[in-house]
């Protein structure tokens, strides 16, 4: 009997249609072309959105056109190469960090196996060091003596259309989560390399719609959805109605109220999409319980700042909107909801873009008197810091049994954890409101794994890619689900609430996703409430 040999079996499978996996690479990485096919790239930005953004004051999105990554010809402007090289030069001069990141990597490999995209795909170009090398090779070629003389021997290569295509593929297979930078002995922030790649691509009209459309909406109406003031107000009012039905307490939130002490800003997703809605109900209940003098704004109606995923000018403009509104309303300071990248912009870029916000006051909790000296410059306090402080001072009364239907774990959202050090406050809150357990040590706190769909990659046409990149996170959730019967993944980020929901639907269907403040809202005892037994807390359908 002829026995098919193992080698034949492997030969028959590796010669199949797979391009990213299945074959041992026999060529140098520079010689492996990028192939775009339906499902491995996010849809490109619509021409009218790019044109609109380019027409806006302070923003620069040139070369709008109809094009497809699958086409050979990307319809680049004639002088595209000059634009890219000049753009890189300008940024090297402007951002000293970029120049250092380009020069100081010793290719030690500490970051290589820390990226969730690498761990889920096995694609070497998803090693953070390699992703940076995509840009660094061009930098060497045009900006270093060694590269100019030795060329490829010094790891340099000329900027070509092929390189540009590779940039597009891999700068959109990075969620700028910065896990890799935790392990870099030089502290290279590979997320900033991705940011530069994306900025350069925008100069030649290359961007994705799931980022540019929310950006243009935010620029126009103040939030990603393009919700107009009356709709935004209606949505919050609906949530207040739901709370009244569930608890018997009528809450009447105010909007655009001049003279309020605090302006509250959260991602608009909390106001319009599940499961964020329940987190927003949690905010309303919390503020009612302590009698906070605050207002919502229908103009600064978005905490999210997708500008961070495009270029620094757009990030600056969208961040400025929140402060312009705080100034207009005359509030003392801003309280920020459970958002991810809003906090990264605040903590890492705001001061040199729009800050310091001297026209506001240093935040002080009106209930406990605590001075938030950490927010002395930005004048913006995180809802978890604020809540943890209230609990610490015994200002909130909880009935933890109201969360008895929940066995939670906590996902450290990348930006709050790594970009602002918000690690213990949410845990302190959870300790008081719910029964919960930690995921394994190398998947939490500073080492947290990304949801896999941040930085505007939360779009359904790349669902497979998102499931791959989310595998390391989902794998850790699976462990606590199987070991401790965890049925709820809590987090403090609106993108997480959307993306982790899909991630769980695929990998761990019996685990739900919620915001920490939803769990607070469930357990918090409101004065005068007539709350009955709610089997699913604020999610209970009456």
């Amino acid at each position, binding site marked *: 009997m002829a026995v*098919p040999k*193992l080698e034949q079996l*492997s030969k028959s499978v590796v010669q*199949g249609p*797979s391009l990213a996996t299945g074959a041992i690479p026999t060529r140098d990485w520079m010689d492996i072309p990028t192939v775009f096919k339906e499902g491995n790239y996010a849809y490109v930005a619509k021409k009218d959105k790019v044109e609109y953004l380019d027409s806006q004051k302070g923003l620069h999105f040139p070369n709008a056109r109809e094009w497809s990554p699958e086409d050979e010809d990307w319809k680049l402007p004639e002088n595209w190469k000059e634009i890219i090289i000049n753009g890189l030069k300008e940024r090297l001069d402007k951002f000293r960090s970029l120049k250092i990141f380009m020069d100081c990597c010793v290719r030690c490999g500490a970051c290589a196996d820390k990226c969730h995209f690498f761990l889920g795909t096995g694609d070497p170009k998803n090693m953070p060091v390699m992703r940076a090398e995509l840009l660094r090779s061009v930098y060497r070629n045009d900006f270093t003596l060694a590269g100019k003389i030795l060329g490829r021997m010094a790891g340099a290569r000329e900027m070509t259309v092929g390189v540009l295509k590779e940039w597009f593929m891999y700068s959109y297979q990075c969620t700028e989560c910065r896990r890799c930078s935790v392990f870099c002995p030089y502290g290279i922030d590979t997320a900033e390399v991705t940011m530069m790649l994306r900025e350069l691509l925008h100069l030649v009209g290359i961007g994705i*719609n799931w980022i540019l459309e929310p950006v243009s909406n935010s620029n126009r109406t103040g939030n990603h959805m393009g919700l107009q003031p009356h709709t935004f107000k209606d949505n919050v009012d609906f949530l207040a109605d739901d709370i009244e039905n569930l608890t018997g307490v009528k809450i009447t939130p105010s909007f655009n109220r001049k003279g309020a002490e605090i302006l509250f800003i959260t991602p608009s997703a909390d106001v319009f999409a599940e499961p964020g809605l329940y987190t927003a109900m949690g905010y309303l209940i919390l503020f009612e319980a302590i009698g906070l003098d605050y207002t919502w704004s229908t103009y600064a109606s978005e905490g999210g700042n997708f500008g961070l995923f495009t270029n620094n000018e757009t990030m600056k403009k969208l961040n400025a909107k929140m402060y312009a509104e705080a100034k207009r309303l005359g509030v003392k300071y801003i309280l920020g909801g459970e958002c991810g990248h809003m906090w990264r912009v605040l903590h890492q870029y705001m001061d040199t873009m729009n800050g310091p916000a001297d026209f506001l006051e240093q935040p002080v909790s009106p209930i406990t008197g605590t001075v938030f000296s950490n927010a002395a410059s930005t004048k913006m306090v995180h809802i978890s810091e604020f809540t943890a402080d209230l609990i610490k001072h015994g200002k909130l009364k909880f009935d933890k049994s109201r969360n008895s239907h929940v066995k939670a774990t906590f996902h450290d959202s990348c930006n709050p954890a790594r970009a602002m050090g918000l690690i213990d406050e949410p845990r302190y809150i959870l300790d008081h409101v719910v029964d919960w357990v930690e995921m394994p040590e190398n998947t939490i706190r500073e080492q947290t794994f990304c949801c896999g769909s941040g930085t505007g990659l939360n779009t359904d*046409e790349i*669902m497979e890619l998102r499931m791959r990149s989310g*595998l390391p996170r989902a794998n850790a959730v699976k462990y606590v689900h199987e070991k401790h019967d965890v049925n709820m993944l809590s987090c403090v980020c609106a993108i997480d609430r959307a993306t982790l929901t899909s991630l769980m639907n695929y990998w761990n269907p019996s685990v739900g996703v919620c915001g920490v403040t939803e769990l607070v809202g469930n357990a918090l005892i409101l004065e005068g409430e007539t709350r009955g037994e709610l089997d699913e807390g604020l999610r209970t359908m009456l």
Partner: protein
Amino acid sequence: MIDLAEAFRNYKEKIVDRWVEYTLSTYQSSGFFIKERDIFANPVGGNVREALNKLLPLLIKGAETQEMIPSLEQILKIRSVQEFSPSQAIAPLNAVKHITREIFQADKERQHLVAELYDFEFATDLAVLAAFDIYMQCRERLYLTRILEIKSGTHILTDSKCPSAMLKDDNKKRTIPTVESI
């Protein structure tokens, strides 16, 4: 006379090791996937190793397919969302037949047992068939996840076209491929 059960006891670890290595060699970065043993630092490698370790004894004892499903699912849930064709996703399961034959063949005292592997290989065939079902269930779950996301409201962040636009006649590239064209 050495019997089959003894031979499997003797070589179980070697078979699993080679099977795991073969499965992980289908990834470009197979070196890391094989080397790192922490399942949280290396979910692909860790899950493949854990699942194949559980699967081998089931194949040896000729277990019911139902018993094999959790291990098969542990592997295929991952491979069905990676860039493999369906056959590539499943083929490494088949490899255990050839690995076992090669290992027994190389041992003079146990060469004769190759002729007794019919039941083991039949169990592997059943596992491979079950794997096709699981692969399809995973793909269906993926599409369902996509639909649920679109329905959830987060999708209306943009007015991007509905996925059904892929089916339009005037856009041949996005037409569902026929069998011949795959």
